[in-house]
């Protein structure tokens, strides 16, 4: 269409006709384009709105799905056991992590109580200390009045001032609640209630309930379900905190929504009133139904003014229409009057098309691209010159089959508009999804000459849709996992219950006393033996602090402070701890001698409680005492003839009875040595028995360590010299220590004496070093050493370590006594190291004067002598 020949009447007539045709065609084309762009924009806005609605619906459905799952889990817990106790319930609920669902206000367990069981139920609830440590002495079923059946709130979580109000509330007393509960019972499904005033604080809310049937009973028919019903688990929601945090901000950005349960407004997402009352030209509204626990909620979503504006701003259809009509008129006038180039029309039209936000492509009948708008180049990445003259196949992603294209072509060649989604390929090879409207353009005779394709990129929308499908699938998976978990839980529970019965039978029947505590030392378990031994009843002591309820006394029957009790140590250090030779106070205030072992119960590296096993040692004590008395008396009787033998022989050797025949000297020396040993043995026996009856007196004083060490070593030097072994004293720190001087020396004598006895070569080194409140005196010898298996016996009574038969025999009591003495003075004696044939190191620790331990020891010894007065003289 270039220029036309010069004027003639015919020509003008033809031109007039042509110009009318042009006008007509122009307007037709404009109308056509306007219609499609308008449809497209409207479609665009609509699909955006639908997307918003989908997202809201999805978020809500997902949240409600979670609540259902919680109910299923709780149903599992309760179905699995005969009766669920509070101790099982609360950790389970806690681990179910309802904090993750901030809109759940409470989870509670409702028990069905028949009228004839009512009194019994109340009585047992009040007295059952397991229900709550403090108990609920005022527990009652409310509202008052006689009904055939009650649905009573038995447990609630979390427990707080408000929630505990609900304990005892009968849900059957409220018709809307009863309707929901009956429905849940009949359907064996989570069922939601209508809007109610909550029993906890009267605020507005609703609950979802799931029924619990008795284990093993059939629940096929409605009658069976009623007969098997045991109770319900319910989760309660407050309207004020419903759907908390369901969207990052308080509502989706472009819409507001309202959730209705019948006529009640349950939830408002965003400022609904403002939006509804605002004046809007293009308001989008959609209502959907949500199925929630057998109730139907309505979700009404309304678009905000800003939503519609964001689309009408792109007022393409209007621009296209006005532009097209103006252009057509202009063209008409131009052709009609001056017959100028039609190419102007094309230019102007294409300018209008260029303004369109959606991609527009015009092709010929074979699909060869003739024109594209800038939106299209932007979408595909191709420049117009790369596209014009090419087939649309350039965009083919290969994602659609031949059948698809055949169908498309058939549609448009038949003169119909094709509408559909296509995945196409950009210049850079990436794929995008678009929604296309392809319309054929026909000439006057109805023959298709061109196609116009208007496209909208829907990649993003597709991605969201896919995500929704995916999360739906995930939700489905997690539901399956939950069901599996519940099955495991059920079988675990059954096993556990069986084990529990077994354990309880064992615990109840063992002869030793057994007391279990929780992590703060409160008694949670006490067996029959413990009750009998201590004269207590489980009912009275469970829930009380062990240490306060059962006082402990030491060997001299002085009270033991809580921090020194094995239980406290076990709870703080997590190690099994013993209390030997202690006394528990019986309910009649007599003292019961016991030994106890406290073992901490550790779960996941946390101390969750303790088990204490203790034994009555009255009989052992009596026997011990008899033995001690016997030893004491016989020792005295033994001493007198020994004194004579020993004294006479040494006098003979000293020449008090005249010169001694040389032949007799050695045998006499042997007699002397043997009698000396016999005397030592008797002395040690006396020491042991004295110590056991608490007769040993300790006089603590402060003195310089180095001085006392030197003094002691002077005496021992003589003995060491005889064996030709060296006795070395390393540099000794200049400290004052606190001890009984005689006892200190006795302990040291004993340890060093032992080392000398068992050392033939080399020597003995004595060192000392300060460690916190103590001085540790170490005695290292190069002697025989002690075998591993003998080391544990070292400090026992009468344990003579049989290293070699040719070795000097000791009394076997030395270390036992030394250790007892050291401990009494606030220190200790232990074997630090021993290697057979290489030697041993013993350590004797003594408190430093004025240290904390020194002061404490002093006080203890003072208390003892007060309880047992004694007049000591020089």
């Amino acid at each position, binding site marked *: 269409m270039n220029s036309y020949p010069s004027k003639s009447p015919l020509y003008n007539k033809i031109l007039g006709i042509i110009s009318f045709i042009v006008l007509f065609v122009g307007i037709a084309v404009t109308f056509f384009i306007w219609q499609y762009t308008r449809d497209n924009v409207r479609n665009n806005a609509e699909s955006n709105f639908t997307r918003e609605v989908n997202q809201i619906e999805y978020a809500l459905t997902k949240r409600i799905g979670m609540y259902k799952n919680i109910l299923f889990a709780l149903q599992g817990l309760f179905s699995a056991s005969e009766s669920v106790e509070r101790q099982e319930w609360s950790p389970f609920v806690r681990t179910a992590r309802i904090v993750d669902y901030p809109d759940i206000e409470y989870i509670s367990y409702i028990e069905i109580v028949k009228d004839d069981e009512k009194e019994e139920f109340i009585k047992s609830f009040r007295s059952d200390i397991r229900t709550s440590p403090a108990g609920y002495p005022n527990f009652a079923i409310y509202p008052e009045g006689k009904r055939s059946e009650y649905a009573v709130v038995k447990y609630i979580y979390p427990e707080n001032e408000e929630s505990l109000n609900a304990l005892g509330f009968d849900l059957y007393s409220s018709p809307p609640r009863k309707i929901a509960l009956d429905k849940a019972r009949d359907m064996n499904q989570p069922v939601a209630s209508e809007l109610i005033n909550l029993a906890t604080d009267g605020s507005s809310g609703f609950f979802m309930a799931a029924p619990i049937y008795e284990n093993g009973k059939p629940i096929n028919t409605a009658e069976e379900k009623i007969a098997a019903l045991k109770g319900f688990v319910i989760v309660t929601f407050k309207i004020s905190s419903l759907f908390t945090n369901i969207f990052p901000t308080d509502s989706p950005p472009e819409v507001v929504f309202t959730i209705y349960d019948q006529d009640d407004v349950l939830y408002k997402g965003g400022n609904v009133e403002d939006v509804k009352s605002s004046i809007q030209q293009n308001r989008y509204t959609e209502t959907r139904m949500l199925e929630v626990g057998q109730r139907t909620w309505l979700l009404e979503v309304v678009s905000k003014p800003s939503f519609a504006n964001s689309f009408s701003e792109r007022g393409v259809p209007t621009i296209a229409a006005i532009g097209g009509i103006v252009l057509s008129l202009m063209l008409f006038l131009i052709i009609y009057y001056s017959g100028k180039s039609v190419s102007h029309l094309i230019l102007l039209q294409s300018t209008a098309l260029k303004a369109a936000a959606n991609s527009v492509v015009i092709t010929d009948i074979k699909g060869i691209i003739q024109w594209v708008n800038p939106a299209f180049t932007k979408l595909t990445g191709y420049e117009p010159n790369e596209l014009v003259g090419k087939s649309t196949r350039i965009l083919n992603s290969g994602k659609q089959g031949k059948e698809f294209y055949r169908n498309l072509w058939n549609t448009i060649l038949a003169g119909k508009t094709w509408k559909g989604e296509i995945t196409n390929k950009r210049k850079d090879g990436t794929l995008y999804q678009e929604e296309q409207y392809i319309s054929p353009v026909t000439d006057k005779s109805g023959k298709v000459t061109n196609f116009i394709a208007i496209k909208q990129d829907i990649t993003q929308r597709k991605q969201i849709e896919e995500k929704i499908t995916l999360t739906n699938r995930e939700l489905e998976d997690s539901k399956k996992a939950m069901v599996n978990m519940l099955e495991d839980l059920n079988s675990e529970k059954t096993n556990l219950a069986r084990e529990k019965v077994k354990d309880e039978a064992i615990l109840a029947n063992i002869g030793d006393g057994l007391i279990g505590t929780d992590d703060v030392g409160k008694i949670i378990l006490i067996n029959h033996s413990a009750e009998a031994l201590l004269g207590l009843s489980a009912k009275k002591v469970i829930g009380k602090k062990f240490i306060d309820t059962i006082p402990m006394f030491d060997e001299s029957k002085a009270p033991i402070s809580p921090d020194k009790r094995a239980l406290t140590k076990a709870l703080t250090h997590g190690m099994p701890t013993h209390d030997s030779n202690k006394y528990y106070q019986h309910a009649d205030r007599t003292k019961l001698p016991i030994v106890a072992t406290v073992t901490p119960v550790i779960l996941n590296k946390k101390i969750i409680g303790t088990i204490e096993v203790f034994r009555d040692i009255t009989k052992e004590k009596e026997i011990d005492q008899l033995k001690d008395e016997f030893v004491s008396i016989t020792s*005295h009787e033994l*001493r*007198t*003839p*020994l*004194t*004579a033998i*020993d*004294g*006479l022989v*040494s*006098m003979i050797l*000293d020449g*008090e*009875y005249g010169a001694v025949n040389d032949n007799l000297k050695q045998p006499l020396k042997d007699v002397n040595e043997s009698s000396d040993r016999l*005397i030592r043995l*008797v*002395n040690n026996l*006396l020491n042991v028995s*004295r110590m056991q009856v608490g*007769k040993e007196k300790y006089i603590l004083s402060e003195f310089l360590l180095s001085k006392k060490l030197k003094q002691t070593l002077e005496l021992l030097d003589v003995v060491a010299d005889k064996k030709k072994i060296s006795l070395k004293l390393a540099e000794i720190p200049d400290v004052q220590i606190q001890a009984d001087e005689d006892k200190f020396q006795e302990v040291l004598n004993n340890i060093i004496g032992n080392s000398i006895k068992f050392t033939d070569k080399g020597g003995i080194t004595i060192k000392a070093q300060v460690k916190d409140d103590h001085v540790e005196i170490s005695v290292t010898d190069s002697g025989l050493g002690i075998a591993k298996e003998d080391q544990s016996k070292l400090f026992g009574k009468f344990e003579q370590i049989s290293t070699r038969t040719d070795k000097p025999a000791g009394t076997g009591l030395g270390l036992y006594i030394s250790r007892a003495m050291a401990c009494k003075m606030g220190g200790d004696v232990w074997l630090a190291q021993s290697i057979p044939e290489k030697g041993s190191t013993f350590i004797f620790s003594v408190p430093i004067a004025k240290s904390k331990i020194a002061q404490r020891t002093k006080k203890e010894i003072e208390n003892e002598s007060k309880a047992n007065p*004694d*007049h*000591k*003289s*020089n």
Partner: protein
Amino acid sequence: MSQTILLVEDDKVLVSMYQTLLQNHGYAVKIGYNGEEGLKIALSDHPDLILLDVRMPKMDGITMLEHLRKDLWGEKAKVIILSNLDPTDQILGSIVENHPTYYLIKSNNPPEQVLEQIKEVLETKQEEKS
């Protein structure tokens, strides 16, 4: 001038042993075989030192000591309790403070040590006198 020691002891063997020991070292020795005898000799002869056993027939050492301390001379008398009994609360309770009383366990103190203790105690007495 030899010093006199009163030995109050019921075991004949020990009497003989201590007697030999003391006489060999230049002491004059008087003997009471029980607390009664010992008290009588002590109050009449006023020995320089009394070696006193505890467990004896008729009158035990502690009773004798109690009687002795009631006497004007006996109050100040030097006494070494020489016994095989451990000093029990009862024994220690009978020993009045500021009265020169010592305690030795026989079996733990061989003759020569007993002798040394005696010497020491006697010397203390002389110092006080001077």
